[in-house]
């Protein structure tokens, strides 16, 4: 049987139904790098760099795919051509993180630097904090006032991911459902920022009727 010419769905069915090592060899050939990369990155997030641990987690992922009569493969329903890749990433990441969570003692689990910064910031600059909150509320009010359609919601999310959460345009563009290129994300941010600036200035009563375009 020529496994190399099979589509992903056909190969998955073959792996789920057959005990032929050929099907699994093709599966490993196609997806080993993906599984390995997810495991390596999970380990890095947990500050674990042992190659043995990485190997163990990779093997466990393969065994999990075989577990319960290949229920993971058998239950997979393809929604779009690359949906299995996302599915496999999620399966691998969940397994690796669950395992790492159980391996690393709670008191050794690291607090992300950003969280540490957040924690350090609380209680300092009370006035600044209040000003920030007021500004955030004002800007968010403008964004929400634009409407509740999916486009407006998406642009609001893009705006705050950029300005408040520090996501890059590339990171935002890579999120499922955003459906924009990094340039497209930058364009949205520029447009929304410009709009908000104008509205903010309008609201400050500084507009003197000099041909400001309507918001």
């Amino acid at each position: 049987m020529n496994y190399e010419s099979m589509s992903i769905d056909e190969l998955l069915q073959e792996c789920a139904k057959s005990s032929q090592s050929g099907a699994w060899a093709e599966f490993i050939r196609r997806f080993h790098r993906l599984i390995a990369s997810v495991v390596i990155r999970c380990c890095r997030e947990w500050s674990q760099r042992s190659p043995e641990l990485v190997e163990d987690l990779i093997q466990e992922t393969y065994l999990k795919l075989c577990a319960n009569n290949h229920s993971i493969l058998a239950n997979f329903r393809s929604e779009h051509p690359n949906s299995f890749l996302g599915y496999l990433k999620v399966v691998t990441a969940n397994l690796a993180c669950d395992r790492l969570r159980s391996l690393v003692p709670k008191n050794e689990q690291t607090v992300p630097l950003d969280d540490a910064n957040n924690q350090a910031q609380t209680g300092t600059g009370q006035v600044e904090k209040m000003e920030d909150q007021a500004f955030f509320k004002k800007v968010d009010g403008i964004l929400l006032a634009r409407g509740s359609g999916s486009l407006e919601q998406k642009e609001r999310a893009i705006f705050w991911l950029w300005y408040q959460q520090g996501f890059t345009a590339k990171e935002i563009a890579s999120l499922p459902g955003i459906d924009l290129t990094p340039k497209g994300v930058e364009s949205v941010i520029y447009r929304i920022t410009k709009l908000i600036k104008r509205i903010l200035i309008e609201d400050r009563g500084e507009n003197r009727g000099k041909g400001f375009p309507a918001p």
Partner: protein
Amino acid sequence: MENGHLSIEQIEDLSLSDEPATGEPPGAWSHIGRCEECRSLVEEYRLVHARFTELVSRKPPARAPMNCPDENIWFDVAGGRLSPAESLTYIQHAATCASCAQKLRTANRIFEDELSAAEESTINSLPSSNPDRQRELAEMLGKVSKAQEDKKGLEVKQTLRIPWRRLLLYAIPATACVIVGLLVSNSIYVKGQVQEVQAFVDSEYGKGRPGDYRLAGMPYQRNRGERGPANLLPFIEIPKSVIRTKPLLAGEAAFLNGEPRSAKEILERACRSCDTSAMTLNDLAVATAMEADTTRSQADYEKALALLDEALKQRPDDAAIYFNRARIFERLKRSEDARKALEQFRRFERDPGWLAEAERMLPSS
């Protein structure tokens, strides 16, 4: 210029810098130097712009928990496992929640398609990236799959076999135990019944034998005479089990119950069941003769004699058979045959009681 003032686009552009860029026409800049309103507006824009710049550089303010979703959901979001609408809902949450945004960013980073050079190097150095190891891994996975198939098949078979296994494991031994138990208890019960009948026979026979004839294997006992309403004796209900297993004993009990007809039926059934031993034939002959004593049937006496002849073929030295033959010949008024039978009897009998009775019988014959 609109209404003698700068356009909003010009004001926005001017707010982004403090002086004219190289090659930029100085018109707008000279206007804000003259126009208080436009200069003020540029300043306003600069302040707002500064707020946005601060917004980027400053971390989001700490906020109360926002009903954050389970942390594993961020893998589903980043992995594209949710519908666009669901995904957008979670992304919106993350956009205004620093903690969830961090998780989303981590998930997104883990799922990034592009590999860095370091990651490429790490993957290439893994033993599982070696083609030989991958072949071994594929074979192992194939074996695991086969083992699961076999187990699945076995489970199906086991599922199907469970009732039979249970039957074999429990029902059959239980049934066997019950049967054995029944047999044992029945055996004990039958044994008890036999013992009871035997005790009755021993007891009643000790009080005198039932009639003129002699039962096989029984010691000498005087004739107790016929039973009747005047001299009622203890009566025993003869169990079927005793009739079936010990027909001779059952017959003796029937004789002692004063029921030679019943004894004859028991013994005839035994003969039909191939129990044609000399003793059974002797007692059946006695029952037949006793019936003939009542009916005065010549034919019955002849039948009795024929049975005794059969018995003699088996045990030609049995004194009891000769004794009974003498009695029947006596009834049939065949004195010579009776005398010859008694002579035979004397040859084999050692019991003085029987010998004495035979002596008393001869004068009358």
